[in-house]
C-alpha cells in the first residue's frame, strides 16, 4: 500500500486529488459517475454573501486545448448554501472546502465567519483571483497590498484552515505567495484562470458577453506548472497545483514540480471520472517507480541529480 495522504496543518487529506471550484458543482452533479468520498477533497462552487446571477450569455468559448469562461460567480448565496446545500455536502466522507468570494474585504470576512459555524467544512479557499467579476476578485489578487489586507482580515476571523487561491495574471507570483504565507495562510492553491479573449470573426464580435474571460484547460498547464514550481520553492506551506490537469501524467508533473496536492478543473467537464482516474494513475506510478510514500516525489525535480 502506497501512502497517499497529506496534511494542511493538522487537517488530513486521504489523498492529493481534489476538485477545483466552479468545475465540480456541489459534488452531487457527479454522484452518478464516481464516489465523491474517494477523493482527497472537493472545493465547491464559488460562494458569495448575496445570490448572484453571474454574467450575461454567452459565457463560454472553446479555444485551442482550453476554454474561456465568464460565468461570474453565479450562485445562490451563503444563506441558500447553508440551508439547502450544506446538509447534502455533509454526507460526503471527504474534506469539503468552500471557495469564498467578495466585492469587499467585509464580504470576505463575513463569509469566513459564516463558515466558522459549519462543522463539516474544515477549510475555506479564499478566491482573490476570479477574473470575471468587476468588483473584487482578481482586483484583490493582482495587487500586493490588497492581497495582504484581505488575507490578514480573513485570517483574523477564520477558525478553519485557510487556503488562498492566487491569480496567475501577475508579474511575480512569488511575491504574492510570500505575502499570503506571511499573513498566516495554511496553504496556497494556484493557478486560477489566465485572462483571455476570443473573437467570433463571423459575427465580428467578442465571443463572450464580457469580452474577457478566464482561460482554463491544458493550454495553461505549462504556465501553471511554472508558477507552482516557483511558489513551492519559495514557501513552507503546502502548495496545491491547478491548471490543465487532464490525467495522471499531468498531475504527476505538478507533484514533481512541488505541489503537495492537485485540483482537477475543466477536465471534469470532458470526463467526469477524471479525478478518480488520476487517483488510480498516481498510485500506479508510485508503485511502478518503487516509491511507497507520495511525499518522496513532491518537488523531486528540484533535487540535485
Amino acid at each position: 500500500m502506497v501512502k497517499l495522504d497529506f496534511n494542511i496543518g493538522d487537517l488530513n487529506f486521504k489523498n492529493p486529488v481534489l476538485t477545483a471550484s466552479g468545475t465540480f458543482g456541489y459534488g452531487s452533479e457527479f454522484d452518478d459517475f464516481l464516489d465523491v468520498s474517494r477523493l482527497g477533497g472537493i472545493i465547491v462552487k464559488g460562494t458569495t454573501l448575496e445570490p448572484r446571477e453571474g454574467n450575461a450569455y454567452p459565457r463560454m468559448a472553446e479555444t485551442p486545448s482550453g476554454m474561456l469562461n465568464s460565468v461570474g460567480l453565479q450562485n445562490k448565496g451563503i444563506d441558500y448554501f447553508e440551508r439547502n446545500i450544506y446538509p447534502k455536502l455533509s454526507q460526503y466522507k471527504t474534506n469539503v472546502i468552500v471557495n469564498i468570494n467578495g466585492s469587499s474585504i467585509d464580504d470576505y470576512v463575513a463569509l469566513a465567519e459564516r463558515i466558522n459555524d459549519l462543522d463539516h467544512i474544515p477549510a475555506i479557499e479564499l478566491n482573490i483571483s476570479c477574473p470575471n467579476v468587476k468588483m473584487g476578485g482578481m482586483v484583490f489578487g493582482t495587487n500586493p497590498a490588497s492581497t495582504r489586507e484581505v488575507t490578514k482580515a480573513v485570517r483574523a476571523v477564520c477558525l478553519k484552515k485557510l487556503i488562498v487561491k492566487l491569480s496567475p495574471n501577475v508579474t511575480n507570483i512569488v511575491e504574492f505567495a510570500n505575502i499570503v504565507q506571511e499573513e498566516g495562510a495554511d496553504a496556497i492553491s494556484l493557478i486560477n484562470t489566465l485572462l483571455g479573449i476570443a473573437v467570433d470573426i463571423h459575427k465580428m464580435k467578442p465571443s463572450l458577453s464580457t469580452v474577457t474571460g478566464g482561460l482554463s484547460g491544458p493550454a495553461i498547464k505549462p504556465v501553471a506548472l511554472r508558477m507552482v514550481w516557483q511558489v513551492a520553492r519559495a514557501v513552507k506551506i503546502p502548495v496545491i497545483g491547478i491548471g490543465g490537469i487532464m490525467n495522471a501524467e499531468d498531475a504527476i508533473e505538478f507533484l514533481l514540480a512541488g505541489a503537495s496536492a492537485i485540483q482537477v478543473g475543466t477536465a471534469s467537464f470532458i470526463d467526469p471520472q477524471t479525478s478518480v482516474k488520476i487517483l488510480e494513475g498516481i498510485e500506479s506510478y508510485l508503485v511502478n517507480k518503487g516509491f511507497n510514500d507520495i511525499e518522496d516525489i513532491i518537488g523531486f525535480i528540484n533535487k540535485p541529480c
Partner: protein
Amino acid sequence: MAKRIESLQIIENKHLNNDFFIIELKGNGQIPEMKPGQFVQVKVDGSPGTFLRRPFSIHDVNYDRNTYKLLVQIVGKGTETLSKLKKGDSLNTIYPLGNSFSLPGKGQRPLLVGGGCGIAPLLFLGKYLKKNGYDPDILLGFRSRDRIIEYNEYIELGEVFLTTEDGSRGEKGLVTEHPLLSSSRYDMIYCCGPDPMMKAVAKFSIEHKINCEVSLENLMGCGIGACLCCIVETVKGNLCTCTDGPVFNTNDLKW
C-alpha cells in the same frame, strides 16, 4: 434515471446527404430508459480543435435492439470528424441528459414543428406521443426539395406538412408561414430548430395562448450542471439548458 458515461459501439453511420448523418449506437449493457428531448454529450476524438464534448439530441431509441440514434448535421470540425466514424468504431457518450418534453393534456392535439437538425428530437417525441395515444401532426421546414430528410420516418407518426424555402415541395416559405399554424387546431406545439424559427413559433403560441415547448441549443461546457456556462434567461432567473432544459415552456422564456 442515472446518467452514465460509456464507450458505445457504432453499429451504423448512415449518411443522408452531404450535411446530415445518423449514427446508431449499441448499449454495452442494457440501455437505460430515455425520454424524448433528452440529449447525450459526445466526446470527439481525433479532432484537435474540438476540446469539449458535443451535445446531440436523442433521435430515436430502440430498446429491442438495445440501440439509440443521433441525427447530426455537419456544421464544424467536431461534427465533421464524427461524420467519418465507421461501423465498429466506438464513441464515448454521457447520457441520458437533461429534462424532456411533457405530454399534452388528455385529448389535446399536438403539433410538432421542426427545421434543420431541429428535427432530431422530434422523431423520438412523435413515437412517444403515439405510444401514449396522441395523434401528432408534423410540420417540417427545409431549404429545398432535395434537402428533405427522414420524411418516411415521420409519415409513420402522423400527417406530415412540408415547407421549403424555394417552394420546390410543400408550401413555399418558412414553417411559420404555413397556413396550418394559423388554423389553430392545436393545443400543444413542440418546436425545435434554428433560433429564429423557435422564436417565431413561440411568439405565435403566446399570441394564440397555445402551450408550447421548445428544445434550446446552447454552448455547453459540461452538460451535467457543473459549469453554469449554458444559461438561458428565464422568468425564474438564469437556468441551465443542460439540466433545467433543454426543453423549456415558452412562457418561461424571456423571448
